[in-house]
């Protein structure tokens, strides 16, 4: 009955279940695109995003439609959105340090700032969020507080992920300490660790 009620409500408000979207947010280089590819590869057989060590590799919102996640006999279908990493500064000189030529670096910086504006605007349009942090770094920054705070203000379901647990410096407790109001799941998107548990949590908490 609840499922039927949801369908009726979503039809009234002009949204079908196919329009449900889950956004992957977080700072640059936290592992958003690696996670997006892990999920996309698992569930559709295709990757969806480019990944590299250079920050701001994702400079547009990348979308994979109709991704079906199944766990414990339940499933949900949604559109998966890989967001550019949100920050308050993008310096083309940082790209040059990664061996990128100056003109290309300036172009990337321009694209990156536009992508961040787009990602910020998308905070109004996502239905649920995975907010991913690099567990080798301290996640308590005003930008990260802003992402979480805006999602909370709109009652958007959030699952916080402490990523890179495969690395020696990983300390997921830092993520829990920074955002104690949310459940934190420890994962390694690169190694595929705990991704099945992630699917369970998505179906249970974010549906």
């Amino acid at each position: 009955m609840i499922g039927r009620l949801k369908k009726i409500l979503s039809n009234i408000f002009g949204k079908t279940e196919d329009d449900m979207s889950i956004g992957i947010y977080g700072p640059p280089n936290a592992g958003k695109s690696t996670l997006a590819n892990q999920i996309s590869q698992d569930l559709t057989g295709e990757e969806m995003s480019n990944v590299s060590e250079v920050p701001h590799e994702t400079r547009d919102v990348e979308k994979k439609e109709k991704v079906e996640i199944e766990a414990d006999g339940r499933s949900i279908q949604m559109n998966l959105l890989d967001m550019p990493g949100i920050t308050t500064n993008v310096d083309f000189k940082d790209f040059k340090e990664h061996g990128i030529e100056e003109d290309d670096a300036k172009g990337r910086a321009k694209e990156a700032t536009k992508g961040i504006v787009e990602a910020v605007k998308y905070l109004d349009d996502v239905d649920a969020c995975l907010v991913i942090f690099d567990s080798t770094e301290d996640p308590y920054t005003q930008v990260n507080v802003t992402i979480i705070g805006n999602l909370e203000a709109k009652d958007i379901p959030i699952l916080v992920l402490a990523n890179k647990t495969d690395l020696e410096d990983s300390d997921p407790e830092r993520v829990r300490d920074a955002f104690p109001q949310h459940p934190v799941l420890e994962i390694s998107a690169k190694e595929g660790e705990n991704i099945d548990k992630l699917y369970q949590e998505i179906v249970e908490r974010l549906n």
Partner: protein
Amino acid sequence: MEFFSRAKLQDRSFEEKMEEIMDKVRESAVLVLEEGWSAEQKRKFIQKTMEEAGEEFPGVEFMGLDPSDNRLERAKSFVFDTVLGQDYRSGLTIVGNSRVMEKMKEEKHSISFLAKLEDDE
């Protein structure tokens, strides 16, 4: 480095404050504001910064000490909002040109950073 008191800030809209902040940080200033910002205000600020960023101005660093989430703060906020019709946000916000601020360290109850001096020519 410039310090803005609550009195200087309180009668102005957030949009007016953002314009002045942007003008000053573009000139490499670091501003210390005697107020905290809401999540929505921080979001608007991030968006505006990225819309203004370019080759000469890559953006900002911003840090803050947010108000404690306790009964007293909630009561003050309620009185200001409901009785006085003013936005009450205790706390502290620091905004500076990202090419000037470095080694930022931020925790819930403390913040620190280094500001680069200009090179003497």
